[in-house]
């Protein structure tokens, strides 16, 4: 009888451990409009967060139509990112952010080599020729992350049960929003995150009569 009880407990524990939790993080602004390009990630609050596992192939941020695409790219620490230029004009990609300082001098087509993002933090990308071009790389020390789509939802899956700190970042947030959540099984309640966004402060791109193409 004692052996059976132990076996039952073991099975239950294993099932709980294997139950891959899913969290739907719904990002809304103050007017309850869904917010795209928000990055949500989870860090274990009751244990050790698994080490980042950067993908073997580089992630791509392209330059197309004199804009970066995508606008926001979340990656794990150690990820390589390549910056192919699909435009007919040259670009000069750079970052002055503490988490990664680099520059790719003027080029067209494929950049010479991928850039390794080896420190966690927010990296702001720009083009030294076209001032309006801007993009963000969110370098994370966790494999549990997702970016919200047009419906404002970021889906984090394959989450072992436990307590986590959920953090959300967006380019128009003054500071990261954080809350503690518990993953107990496969069906966790959606996390609705209210974001107070600052006005859009991107450098204006539209031309002006009499203004040169390169200021």
């Amino acid at each position, binding site marked *: 009888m004692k052996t059976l009880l132990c076996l039952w407990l073991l099975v239950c524990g294993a099932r709980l451990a294997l139950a891959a939790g899913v969290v739907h993080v719904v990002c809304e602004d103050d007017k309850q409009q869904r917010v795209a390009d928000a990055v949500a990630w989870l860090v274990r609050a009751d244990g050790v967060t698994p080490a980042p596992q950067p993908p073997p192939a580089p992630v791509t941020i392209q330059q197309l139509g004199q*804009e970066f695409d995508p606008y926001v790219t979340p990656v794990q620490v150690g990820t390589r990112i390549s910056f192919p230029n699909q435009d*007919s*004009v*040259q670009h*000069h990609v*750079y970052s*002055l952010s503490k988490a990664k300082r680099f*520059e790719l*001098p*003027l080029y*067209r087509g494929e950049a010479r080599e991928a850039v390794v993002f080896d420190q966690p933090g927010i990296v702001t990308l*720009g083009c*030294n*020729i076209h*001032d*309006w071009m801007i993009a963000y790389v969110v370098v994370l020390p966790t494999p549990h992350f997702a970016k919200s789509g047009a419906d404002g939802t970021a889906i984090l899956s394959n989450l072992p049960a436990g307590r986590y700190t959920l953090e959300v970042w967006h380019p128009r947030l003054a500071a990261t929003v954080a809350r503690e959540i518990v993953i107990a099984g496969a069906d966790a309640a959606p996390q609705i995150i209210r974001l107070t966004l600052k*006005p*859009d*402060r*991107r*450098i*204006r*791109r*539209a*031309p*002006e*009569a*009499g*203004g*040169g*193409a*390169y*200021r």
Partner: protein
Amino acid sequence: MALNQSPLTPRIIFRRLHLALWLSLPFTASALFAQPFLTSGSLTATWHDNLTQAVAGVEHLAATQFAASLAAEHCHTLNRDDALLLGAAINAEAWSRYTGLDRATLGGQLGWRHRFGLGAYAPTLRLDLATAVVVARESARTGNQSTATLRASRRFSPETRLDLAADYGRQTARDTVLGQQRGSLSAEVAYDPNPQWRWRGRVRWANGDVLVYHPVTWTPWGWQHLHGYGAGYNYYAFPTSIVRTFGPPHHAHRVFAHTWSYSLGVSPAIGPRTALTFQIERAETAYDAISYINHALTLGVAHQF
């Protein structure tokens, strides 16, 4: 010197269209084959309240200037901070009432840009040398123009940019009285509260030649100012010519004056490559003890291809 306007015969129209077609080929090729030229165009309409630069209201003549321009610019980077800029532009201007002022220009531009550091907030110094051929409907105004501009720019935030500029321009004309030389200093602040809107304020001080016009009538003692304005001032100390740009004969005096001008503009973007422009400008020009005021209102649209 009496001036005639060229009659627009079908032969002349055909020749101009032919010329326009050839001139537009580089721009078309640039757009079609996606060469690293950035091509932009603009259409503007500007209402001027005092074309004659007259002191007295009775001598003010107002008209609207319609302008179309197409420009292509190529950026050749020398190193991280320096770039050479090569450009070409074609402009056409048509006036609502005084067609003698209609003109077209075709020109090129060579520039050097230095950025003191990396990124959008690094101060920028830019030197441009531009030259153009001017073809005017009133043949006496046909000539060449050349400009040198030195501009220092600094962006302080995503919303705010300051431009300080000094320029010197020279325009020749077949009637030498109608040629001008002028230099100016200007400061401009652009404020973009968001990526859709831009407000611009500019103060400019210019010093150099200005053409002022007075209606004249023939008397036994020669051409005399019709309204007597300026009779107490020796305009004939300045180079003077007779023009019929405004219908009745006018004296064109090329005086040396300085001008303070103030402009305020707003530009809503209607897309990432297209924007509208509204601008109001007031200019106060003075030479010796004489001064006059000009106002100009501009509506326009600019597009980057």
